[in-house]
């Protein structure tokens, strides 16, 4: 009801149509898809439909959201089987002649309805060595960096931690290698630290031995679902893999490296 009544009367009248949403209801033990029908209006996103359904029929339907503008990465789910943000998926981009399915992420343990336990992600981050800057360059205690030298890092820092890339990655989703592989999100995170011009830490050994970068076989599924358009595979993972190879497998570079510090 909430949305329908806030719409101006003209638009409500013009678009007084309904659509059906097949939403996963249940917990880790049992559950099923339940159909809900609600009014749809111009410009609506899937999250609006979920909110309507909560207000009208299913107040206990569990779903995370915060910003409703693609900025917080809370509302991740699988819409018609594709990992997406509920708040950025417009209904007019979906076929509404058949039910729209909304299901929770598959790579994480289900808690209830559309909510999964994503704590593993937070634990993984703690295992990655933190930012460790070189001493300030300037007398006022600050650093000098050129924009072109931080463009790439800024691309990675756009990440909203929606975990859609983690959800789609087969290493986690199908093979459940959560103990061995940190997943695309955290490879992006590691890349943002490794490529930060100020950072002096070395994370390559960890990436190889503890973070499982070798498990990634560059399928690029993660890049396809990233709502922030981060070129996860090309810009983060492949360069990191190259660095790992340079560091540990290429004898010539290794020799050269002996005489040259790795970082500026």
């Amino acid at each position, binding site marked *: 009801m909430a949305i329908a009544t806030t719409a101006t009367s003209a638009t409500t009248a013009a678009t007084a149509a309904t659509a059906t949403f097949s939403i996963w209801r249940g917990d880790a033990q049992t559950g099923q898809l339940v159909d809900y029908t609600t009014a749809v209006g111009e410009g609506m996103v899937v999250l609006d439909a979920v909110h309507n359904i909560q207000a009208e029929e299913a*107040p206990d339907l569990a779903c995370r959201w915060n*910003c409703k503008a693609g900025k917080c990465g809370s509302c991740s789910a699988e819409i018609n089987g594709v990992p997406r943000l509920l708040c950025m998926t417009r209904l007019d981009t979906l076929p509404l002649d058949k039910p729209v399915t909304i299901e929770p992420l598959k790579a994480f343990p289900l808690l209830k309805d559309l909510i999964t336990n994503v704590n593993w992600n937070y634990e993984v981050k703690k295992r990655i060595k933190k930012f460790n800057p070189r001493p300030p360059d300037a007398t006022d205690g600050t650093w000098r960096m050129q924009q072109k030298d931080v463009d790439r890092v800024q691309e990675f820092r756009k990440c909203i931690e929606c975990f859609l890339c983690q959800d789609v990655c087969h290493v986690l989703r199908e093979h459940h290698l959560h103990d061995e592989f940190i997943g695309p999100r955290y490879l992006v995170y590691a890349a943002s630290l490794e490529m930060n011009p100020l950072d002096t830490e070395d994370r390559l050994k960890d990436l190889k031995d503890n973070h499982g970068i070798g498990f990634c076989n560059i399928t690029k599924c993660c890049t396809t679902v990233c709502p922030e358009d981060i070129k996860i595979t090309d810009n983060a993972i492949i360069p990191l893999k190259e660095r790992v190879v340079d560091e540990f497998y290429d004898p010539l570079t290794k020799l050269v490296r002996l005489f040259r510090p790795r970082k500026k």
Partner: protein
Amino acid sequence: MAENQSQYQTFEHDVLVIGAGGAGLRAAIEASSPGVSVGLICKSLLGKAHTVMAEGGVAAARGNVDERDNWQVHFSDTMRGGQYVNNWRMAELHAREAPARVCELEAWGAVFDRTADGRILQRNFGGHKYPRLAHVGDRTGLELIRTLQDHGIHQGIEVYMEVTVVTLLRDVGSGGRVVGALAYDRERGRFRVYQAKAIVLATGGVGRAYKITSNSWEGTGDGHGLAYHAGAELIDMEFIQFHPTGMVYPPSVRGILVTEGVRGEGGVLKNNEGRRFMFDDIPANYKDQTADTPEEGWRYTQGDREARRPPELLTRDHVARCIVREIKAGRGSEHGGVYLDIAWIKEKLPNATDHIKRKLPSMYHQFKQLAGVDITQQAMEVGPTTHYIMGGIRVDADTQESTVPGLFAAGECAAGINGANRLGGNSLSDLLVFGQRAGHYAAKFAQANSAGKINGDEVDEAARQALEPFERTGENPYQIQHDLQNMMQDLVGIVRREDEMQQALEGLEKLCQRAGQCGVTGHREFNPGWHTALDLKNLLTISEAITRSALERKESRGAQFRDDYPAKDAEYSKFNFVNWKDREGNMQTRREPLAPMPNELKKIIEELD
């Protein structure tokens, strides 16, 4: 259904920080040290708090782009923007300390946009005399919260995600200091008792009291409500910032913010006649600082130091009212807003399309995806949206301690620094400056005090009350929230009147009764209906405080505009309004005189004015 106290999961910390936005994270980082254990609670997952949505930037007079900037100018801009009812000491501390707090973020991994000589770039924003907002495109809040989060997780802070505090617990025996909090975890719906020697509230804003808002579901004024019911005072509650530019179309995105950065980068406001109506009404106290011609305004946005700011960059209260005036006069846009045009800069810049996408990437994205509008080619439709509350918990300027011993507050839920109107960018800096201070003094308090005694009966009673909605078959809480939002929007919105606000007070009483009878279905496990029912208490409390203070302030100043008292009245520049709960549980309102400003600060204002 109620479990008895021994069954509640209990946690003990020296300092408990409630809220993990910028203010809470900064406070937790400051408070945690080898001798002080810190717990940090938030309603959502870590990193999702409202702060993540901040766009335009963080204000700090570093003078990287214009070296004439310094803390004195920032102080004076903040006071002028707040119409001089700010807490001058907070405004002073904020202006002095913000530069160091921003610099510290860089040391923790933040990557701001750069100047040509490699320093942190700063941009223009409304009411700031010089380019002052450090930023990362238009996603500064993400950078800020992520930096604090990524730094904070290595500081030994215990984080409790998706936990909501419902009551603060006090030790009546020891001067009424706070000793803990009762909370429930959202996942399982079980109660938890957090024992703490000091508590920092950093719960953010109240936007959810209104229908059209840029705030997320979290903005239900919890900290305001918790503090008030624990005996703390609220101040300046009449001052709600309606941001001039929220999205208006399509209906489902109404209220979502369009950053002021659009105007900072040269965007202009036009009515349906194509007129730049902001030139029509420039307040006397800003005349000298405002451009005479569009040409001069453009030069200002492009960094010409001799030029003055375009009227689109006047303070938010003023811009919002001008927009309302245009809409009411029938000169609005198709869907009831006005036009905000950044695409026009292609007349001036050869690579305008790329420039806009680089400077305003998330605005580009947001309009393209949600409204089907390409902002590099078309004008946006915008209108005012409830955005920020200047009012909040009354605190000591230096320590951020409230009037309840051991209870501190920082960020949007605390008040004083902004007066009658906040300048854009001054919130993110406020979070850092006063988050740091609150954390520091809360840790000190905790070290100087032993653990207090929690009253088990009080806990049981609070838990019982929280479960009541399950035992009733009453009305759906969503409907009550919805009706409250509509009422506040219509009766205590941008333009206010005595009779309408009296009507709102009566309405609030009825809504309180309905809230007391609402019922929820389902189980305690992650049940948004139940959560909404519990949020109603705080929403109603703060709505009452807003309305009562707004009624008392019989003048127009900053964000408060009274149709029946359209002029500013010097009498009202001498005090703030304070709300508190009396012994009978009723809300009282009083006038609290402003502390006299020291001469050296007065001089700064006079010299810069």
